[in-house]
Every structure is written in C-alpha cells, then in structure tokens.
C-alpha cells in the first residue's frame, strides 16, 4: 500500500516500482499474445483525427434550445474529465508492462491506446466548445472525488498489485461497463455530429476491452489459485467501490443535490439527442452488461457474485 507523504514544496506519493533496477535484456520482441499484436495492428490502421474526421460545422449550436445546449456543454465537459484519467494515469501501465518484462505487444498496443484516449479527450473538448465552451472543473467539490481517479497509476507503480488485478478491474470491469453505455448512447443520440463522435470513440473502445480479456486469458494457465482469487476480488472491489458509486454516471451515486443536478444535465442532453443516457434506459443495459461480464468470467472458471445497489437491486 503506497503511503502518501507530504513536503512543504508539493505533496508526493511513493511509487515502489520506480525503485526497481531496470533489466532490459534479453529483449523479447517475438509475439507472445497474437491477439494483442492484432489489436496493435488494428489500432494503427484505424487512426482518426478529431479535428478532421468530424464535421464540426454541421453542429449548429444556435439551433439548440439554450437549456439543452448548456446541459450538453456540461455533459461533454464531464466526458472530457473522464477521458483524461486514461492520459494521466493509465500510461503508467506501459511502464509496468516493460519493467515486468511482459510481452512487448502489450506496451506497443498501450502506446496506441494512450493516443486514442487523448483523441477522445480532444473530441469531448471540441464538442463542449461547440456547445458554448468547455468547462474545466466541476462546480461541486464532491463530484471531483467521484471522477478524480480510479487509482490505476498508484496500482501500476505498486509491484505488490499484480497486472492481472489491474487489468481485470480496469478493463474487464470499468471499460466493459463504459462500452455498453456508449452503445446505448449511440442508439439514442440523434444529433449526427454527436453520434459520429460517439461512434468513433466506441470503435476504439472495442479494442480496449478486447485487450483486457486477451491478456487475462493468456495469463490464466500460469496463475495460482491465490492469484486468480486476488484478481477476482480486484474486479469485485472496483465494481463495488468505483463503478457502483457513480464513477461513470451520477445516478449510481447516492442521491444529493449534486447528483440531482448532474442527472438533470444528463436528461436534457439525452432529450436533445446530443449524448448522455438516463437512469431508466441505462438500468437494464447495465444489468445485461453485468450478466455478460459475469458469463465471460464464468467461461474462464471464475465466479462473479451478485451485486447490490440501491437503484438496481440485486443483480
């Protein structure tokens, strides 16, 4: 467990992985996980540019009622904050992959993935700007806690947290939940510019999710029962303490004036066909996602328990 130390100059944190001596050789460059190599190749071939591949001029903000436009501006700003976590935290996984001497295609793919996440953040920023201006911070301090961090940087730089645990939690959990959410939004987002943006993001997310499963599947034959149990628990803990507390959508967070406001923003954005989802539409999707993920783990011989949430019941 990393300790948080402070200094008069700037608060700091430990990062034990960084104190490990590098051992670069022998350098294994042959493909060990072909499916991840294929993802790297596919990512290279499916690059896009938020500036050039979305017809921003087709989005006429003046044609949108002010209340909806302002809500959508908020929503897309929030999406940008969420995407930023994959720029400020997840790249440390590349450090972890190389220092743990994992198959090189993992770091190769993650280099592409990091750029994709930056594209997503740029896209969200451009949407918010088009709708009236990007908002750089939540109004409510509490909200910053919900979206501030999923802790990946800390875990990646902690050798005592296995890569399998991190990937199971981050990718097989959080990214899978986000994936079906994006699919739902694409179905309900009528504005062509917003729809295009969501589709391009989703196309990248397909590979991000696949990466996690391919890695876990490659590792399972080499893991001990204890290691598999820790990985299973990491997935469960992240689902319970990150996803189900409102990391991705405010309606999963405990009710408060803040979540009421965020839900209002989501509803207005959704009504305008500019993105977002609403609780009533997303609940069955999320439950189906959990069913799907549970089955996927079951196919690997890993049991995922039922979860409980005040608004979802037991699922």
């Amino acid at each position, binding site marked *: 467990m990393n300790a948080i*130390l402070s200094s008069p100059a700037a608060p700091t944190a430990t990062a034990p992985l960084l104190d490990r001596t590098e051992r670069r050789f022998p350098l294994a460059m*042959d493909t060990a996980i072909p499916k991840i190599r294929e993802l*790297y190749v596919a990512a*290279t071939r499916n690059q896009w540019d938020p500036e050039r591949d979305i017809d921003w001029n087709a989005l006429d903000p003046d044609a949108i009622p002010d209340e909806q436009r302002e809500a959508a501006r908020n929503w897309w700003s929030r999406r940008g904050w969420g995407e930023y976590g994959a720029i400020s*935290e997840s790249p440390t996984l590349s450090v972890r992959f190389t*220092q743990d001497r994992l198959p*090189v295609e993992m770091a190769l793919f993650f280099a592409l993935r990091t750029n994709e996440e930056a594209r997503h953040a740029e896209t969200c920023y451009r949407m918010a*700007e088009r709708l009236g201006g990007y908002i750089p911070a939540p109004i409510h301090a509490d909200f910053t806690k919900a979206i501030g961090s999923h802790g990946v940087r800390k875990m990646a*730089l902690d050798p005592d947290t296995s890569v399998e645990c991190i990937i199971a939690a981050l990718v097989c959990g959080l990214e899978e939940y986000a994936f079906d959410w994006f699919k739902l939004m694409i179905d309900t987002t009528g504005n062509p510019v917003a729809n295009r943006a969501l589709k391009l993001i989703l196309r990248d997310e397909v590979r991000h999710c696949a990466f996690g499963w391919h890695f876990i599947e490659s590792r399972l034959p080499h893991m001990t029962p204890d290691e598999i149990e820790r990985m299973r628990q990491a997935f469960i803990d992240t689902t319970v303490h990150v996803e189900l507390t409102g990391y991705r959508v405010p309606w999963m967070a405990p009710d408060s004036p803040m979540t009421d406001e965020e839900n209002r923003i989501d509803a207005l954005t959704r009504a305008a066909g500019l993105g977002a989802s609403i609780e009533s539409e997303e609940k069955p999707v999320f439950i189906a996602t959990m069913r799907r993920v549970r089955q996927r783990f079951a196919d690997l011989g890993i049991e995922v328990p039922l979860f409980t949430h005040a608004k979802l019941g037991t699922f």
Partner: protein
Amino acid sequence: MTLILQEYRFPLHLEPRVESIWEVYSRAKAERWDPSRSVAWDRLDAGAWPDDAREGARLAWSHRAWLQFGRLSETPSLLVRFCLERQRESDPKYFLSLRGTDEAWHLDVCHRVAERCGGFVAEPGNAAYAARFNQTLHREVLDAALGLDEYVGAYVALREHLEAALLAVARAATTEPVLASALDLMLRDKLRHAQFGWLYLAERRAQLDDAARGAIARRSQDMLERFYASGLMVPGFAPDIAGDVAAAQESAAAAGLGVASFGAQRQALRGVLEDARARFAALDVEAANLRLPG
C-alpha cells in the same frame, strides 16, 4: 525511495494554449503512418546483400531497437509527469500521447528490418555494454525531486535534436530504397519530437530561474555522458565494449543499409551540438561547455 508528485486534476485544461505546439500536434495527426503498410517490405531483399553487409545491418538495426525500447516506458512517464505538474498546458500532453505511437512504430520497424536481415539480436554480446542500456529514465522523469523543465531541456530538446541528426545522416547514407523510405518516416517523426522540445523550452523561458537553467546545463552534459560517451547511441565511442556493434554499423553503412559510418555520425553530432548550444544560449542556458566524446 522515489517519490512522485500528487495529482491535482482541476481545473483541468484541455484547451490548446501553446499555438506552436498545437500546430506540431495537428501536423503529427495528419502525418500518421503504418509500419506494416507504409513500407514496402516485400521489396526488401536482404538475401541479395553480401553476408557481412546483411549481418552488419542485422546487428545495427537490432541496436536501434534496443535503444528504442526504452521509449516505451520513458514517454508514458513523461506524459504522466506533465499531468502531475500543477496546471501545465494541454498541448504537450496531447503531443506526447502521439509521440508514444511514433516510437512504438519505430521499434516495430527496427525489429522488422532486423528480422529480415536474419533475425533480431536480443541483446548485446558484451555484458558491460548491455548494462549501460538500463538507464531507468522512467524513474527520473517521474521523480518529484528532479525538475520537469530540466528534463525537457536535456532529454527532449537536446537529446531528440541529436537523435534527429543521427537519423538524418543515416538516411543520407542509405541507398537501399525500402530502408530509405522507412528512415524517411522515422526522421519526419523525430524532427517533430525535437521541435517540440525546443518549442516547449522556449514557452517555459519566463519560468526558468537561474537554478533551473543551471540544472538544464548540468543534466544536458550528464545526458551526453550517459548516452554518447558510453557508446549507447554511437557504439564507435566505446569500441572496448561495443566494438562488435560499431563494426556492424561500418559494414551496414558501407552497403547503404540504413546506418552512417562512425565518422559521419561524429561529424553530424558536432554540427548539431553547435546548433544546440546556440539554441540554449538564446534561452539563457549556459551550454558552451557541452561536450561530446572524442
């Protein structure tokens, strides 16, 4: 024990702020390529080359890959460091996310060339030389005790500037068309990487105090020792432990297979270092004493 900064995410700036760097980033997005498709690998006939030239190219391009591998951890660390610093601009973050893909592709290309020359060589033949590659730059980048701007000065601006010069002289010496095309792509990227470093340093000029400027100069010389005097970048500077790689480069260079001779590399470095001294001087960084080996 290495400590890293703690992140304070908000207010979160995603808007462009440094026009020059945003332009480089935009250009980089437009100049995307694909190692598997942008190079005509089917036309690379290494079997037609003399054995010594082919073996030389095999080891020379493997050496390039050994160096490039370090970027897979360094660049993500640099991106994260920018995010951990309070209120740094968004433009470098966007750019560095792209730089990481460039470097992944460069490594991919180097490996492909080595494989086609008879097989990638997984490690240096000399253990002492191999140990020098363990530079752990990802640690230095993230270390809160070391400044980000000094790292940018030494390891982004100067180091990329020198590496671009090495790629340029290698490209100039390359007559094999497939390898030439690969180097064209790599060089185009590398020139952007160097440009980013100088642009950002210029952007930070007003924030650099005497201590920071002194640190840039010190770390720049340290970088030259670690990466050049050591023979890491140019094996010819360390013939005692990297003589096999140096000889491989000479063989490959003589056959126009993607590498320049030691003499050409040294001359190129001297010229570009002179240019770098001038650039540093314009930023009030005392760099007159920066020295390359030999």
